[in-house]
């Protein structure tokens, strides 16, 4: 207990004093999460809407495939992207291994299926009669489709928040593709593992608390959104 208490006190001190290492890892984690969520969003949200809106052969297979990808362990995605961007890999010439852009690509690969599947579910969940109602009031097919997307907006936002949450707390891709290089690719999660390994428990705990704060902010945002959705 004593160790934990001491560690907590030291952790608080590190955070309050804006320890340069803690700050560096936190900002890098935040940057990676924001950029990869944005990139994945640009890709996956339209794709999810497209799949939800269209009827095509093999749609059920696509949906099953996406749902399978939801459960893929992050280390597997890390290995897969590593294989692609390592020196011998097909994209080795881009020299992305052990770089932040490399991690971002890995994270995009990780969350794109999640974001697609959740967007798809959010759009599909919108009452089928919404489209019919819009058309009954004189909306064209395109206008009716837009109404459906509008009605799914809170579900889509929740999907984006969930994707962001997955990246922020993720360690497999960041470790394997990023390589945990201090000053370059070390993030909150990889730093925690390293510091625990080396016995710097207080620092690891401080980093953990920052990570927890990220989760907290995320959840507050989520709750606010849901409250908003209930109001509307």
């Amino acid at each position, binding site marked *: 207990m004593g160790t934990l208490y001491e560690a907590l006190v030291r952790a608080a001190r590190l955070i309050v004093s804006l320890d340069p290492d803690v700050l560096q890892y936190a900002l890098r984690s935040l940057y990676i999460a924001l950029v990869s969520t944005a990139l994945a969003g640009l890709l996956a949200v339209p794709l999810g809407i497209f799949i939800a809106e269209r009827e095509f052969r093999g749609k059920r297979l696509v949906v099953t495939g996406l749902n399978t990808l939801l459960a893929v362990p992050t280390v597997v995605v890390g290995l897969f992207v590593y294989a692609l961007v390592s020196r011998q890999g097909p994209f080795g010439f881009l020299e992305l291994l052990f770089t932040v852009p490399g991690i971002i690509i890995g994270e995009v690969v990780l969350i794109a299926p999640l974001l697609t599947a959740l967007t798809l579910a959010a759009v599909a969940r919108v009452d089928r009669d919404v489209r019919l109602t819009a058309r009954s009031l*004189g909306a064209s097919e395109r*206008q009716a489709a837009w*109404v459906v997307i509008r009605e799914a907006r809170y579900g889509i936002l929740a999907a984006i928040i969930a994707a962001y949450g997955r990246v922020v707390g993720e360690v497999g891709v960041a470790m394997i593709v990023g390589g945990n290089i201090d000053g370059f690719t070390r993030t909150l999660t990889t730093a925690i593992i390293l510091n625990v390994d080396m016995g710097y428990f207080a620092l690891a705990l401080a980093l953990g608390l920052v990570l927890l704060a990220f989760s907290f902010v995320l959840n507050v945002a989520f709750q606010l959104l849901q409250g908003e959705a209930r109001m509307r």
Partner: protein
Amino acid sequence: MSPFRLENVVQRYREQKSGAPIEALRVRALSIEAGEILTVVGPNGSGKSTLLELLAFLRPPAEGRVLFEGADVWERKTDLAARRAVPILLQKTVLFSTSVLKNVLFGFRVRGLSSQEAQARALAALRLVHLEHLAHRRHNELSGGEQRRTALARILALDSRVLVLDEPTASLDRESEQVIEDLIRRLNRERGVTLILASHNRGQAAALSTRVVTLLGGKLVPESLDNLLPGTLRRVEGGFEFTERRGWTRRFAAAELTEDAWEGIGPVEGPVQLAISSASFAVGAAGATSGALDGVVDSVRQGDGSCRIRVRLGNGPSLYAEIPRAEYARLGLNLGARVALSVKPGAVRVFGARSGTAP
């Protein structure tokens, strides 16, 4: 020019599980004139909503033509324009997740109108359904009746010459129902709006409409068939046994039932509606004819040349019979008189109770 004409229209749906096509509607001919209040009545699943969605151009027919103001809308690909001319209140109320006022403004927005005038018209429509005070409420802060009235205001605001209303007052409290019924009458009388309604309430339909048509099993029942008996039909030796909904039973010889109504609905067994024209009965003294329907006269309405009597069959249903006045006088049919209704061969027509299902 009549706003609507349906010619040999067939509508089919795919069954959700098997994907097999189900015939939901088969209408040889139907015209609707300007200024009518036409109500389509029939039990659940008889094809009312399918017919109304065709009239509102939400779906093209599988076969046949739907003409709007003389033009074949689907052939000319003018369905969006036609849809904008004929707003429909769908059976299920769906409000968009925004305020009441913005819901009502939706029709203007998709038409590219968002002026002060649109706003004024939306508020006027809300006034018509007595919801002006709730204009800025959210969609989910309304009672069921208020939601229905918002949906109604949404189509009223568009000032169309034609409105289609699918069960506008179903499952509403009496007050909301009254508001909507009064409104339908006023729109028709004061603005000459043509209204097409669906209802399963025959009494309401008769009180509200200028014309009532009946759908059974996806088919229009000719107006002359004014006696409808819901029940089940079972094949027995030498004919069929009909059990009316409340348990009254009678056997019919095969020759008494019309076969042409069976076309396309498979073997006649299971839930059906028997339809008999009030003019097709021969009325005689009770017990005089074997095989006749014996009953007691329980109401009489005298018309110009004929009388319409209602005959209650034992503990079973009541049937209307239309007979010439002279015949009525000769038989001395006072209230309470016992009579026998003879069914002419082929006079009883059989309709499957639900569309698309073999009765």
